[in-house]
């Protein structure tokens, strides 16, 4: 049966229209229809966080949202935030502190970390850990990730950068 529906959404600032099957997840739509493969697909049931996206300004699980639900929404992916340089300080800190190894979790981890930094307030290491508690990393043991986020947070909050 053909249940396909037409959707229009904004992805990284560009408006796109496609016909999609209702069963297609947003992350699969981005990867397969638009070729934006930076968002990764891990567990596919909301546990690992590798598919973290930003929809209308709030982070979501790309595997727990259907593409049809994103009709009319503003979607931002790791590619968009990377190109706009919004993530540049975090990317630099992750690199310098070895906060990644295989890199599979990194896009989702950066999206979750940036979501905390955007709150623009000083947070404790414990709060950083809580905020990334929905993102699995199987390589680093998290210490370096928390270090990197903490470093950027301290620089940005101290210099009053939003």
């Amino acid at each position, binding site marked *: 049966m053909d249940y396909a529906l037409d959707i229009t959404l904004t992805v990284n600032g560009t408006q796109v229209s496609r016909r999609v099957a*209702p*069963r297609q997840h947003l992350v699969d739509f981005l990867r397969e229809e638009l070729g934006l493969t930076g968002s990764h697909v891990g567990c596919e049931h909301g546990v690992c*966080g590798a598919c973290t996206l930003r929809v209308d300004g709030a982070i979501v699980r790309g595997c727990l949202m259907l593409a049809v639900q994103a009709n009319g929404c503003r979607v931002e992916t790791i590619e968009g935030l990377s190109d706009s340089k919004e993530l540049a300080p975090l990317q630099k800190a992750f690199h310098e502190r070895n906060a990644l190894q295989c890199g599979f979790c990194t896009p989702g981890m950066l999206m979750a970390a940036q979501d905390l930094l955007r709150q623009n307030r000083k947070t404790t290491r414990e709060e950083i850990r809580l*905020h990334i*508690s*929905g993102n699995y990393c199987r390589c680093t043991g998290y210490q370096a990730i928390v270090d990197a986020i903490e470093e950027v947070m301290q620089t940005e909050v101290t210099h009053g950068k939003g």
Partner: protein
Amino acid sequence: MKAPSFAYAKPGSPAEAFELARRPGAKVLAGGQSLIPALNMRLSQPELLVDISGLPFREISLEQGVLRIGALVTHSEIEKSEEIARHAPLLAEAVKHVAHPAIRNRGTVGGSIALADPAAEYPACMVALDASIAVAGASGERLVKAQYFFKGLFEVDLAPGELVAAVEVPAQLKDQRSVFLELARRHGDYAIIGLAAYKGKSTRFVFCGAGPTPVLAKHASAARDLDTAVSLLEKDLEPSADLYHSAATKLHLAKVLLKRAWTTLSTSP
């Protein structure tokens, strides 16, 4: 895994939603943070998803001592609401245990209540707070006491074509206390065991993850001192084992939470 094939409709009005939701094979989609994983794992194979996110069930309002929270209010909105922090602090505490930020941004109060996962936080809170569930359908709205709404494992007092429209929570007064405690393997994971505790004119200890529905520990709630409450808890709870914890472990952990909650409730704010 990928979800099975289904049709999708997004009604623009409650009337249209009631009509769609009563069709055979229809499932209601709110935030989707439990339904979509179930679809992905093929635990659910609906013919039609009725996306109710366009309906006007988003209010948080206080009227005559009752806090009404619309079904589509998300966990994140609960977390940020000053009205909820002031008038339903139990919910503000419980929401911190609900999954992770990315999931809290989409998951809804109504979804949690209508699904009634036995490990979920809100159903236990609703029973502890003696809240009512506003059920809407083609013939209007009815209020059901939380205690009677949760009927069995994933079974609630909702007929085909009916939706949870809101929850109505009595606003907490100055001389009332409440506390929410939960143990999980990772912060935000499903509860091994959780406890929503309320103390006003009466005391209510309500556990999640301890049975098919929220379990009101009647004997422990009526006890006058902690030792009695702890010893009576075995009469109230018969938690079944899960993959990682035996029934005995769960009962032990329930007692641990009961002791912590008792101490908090008996300390003045």
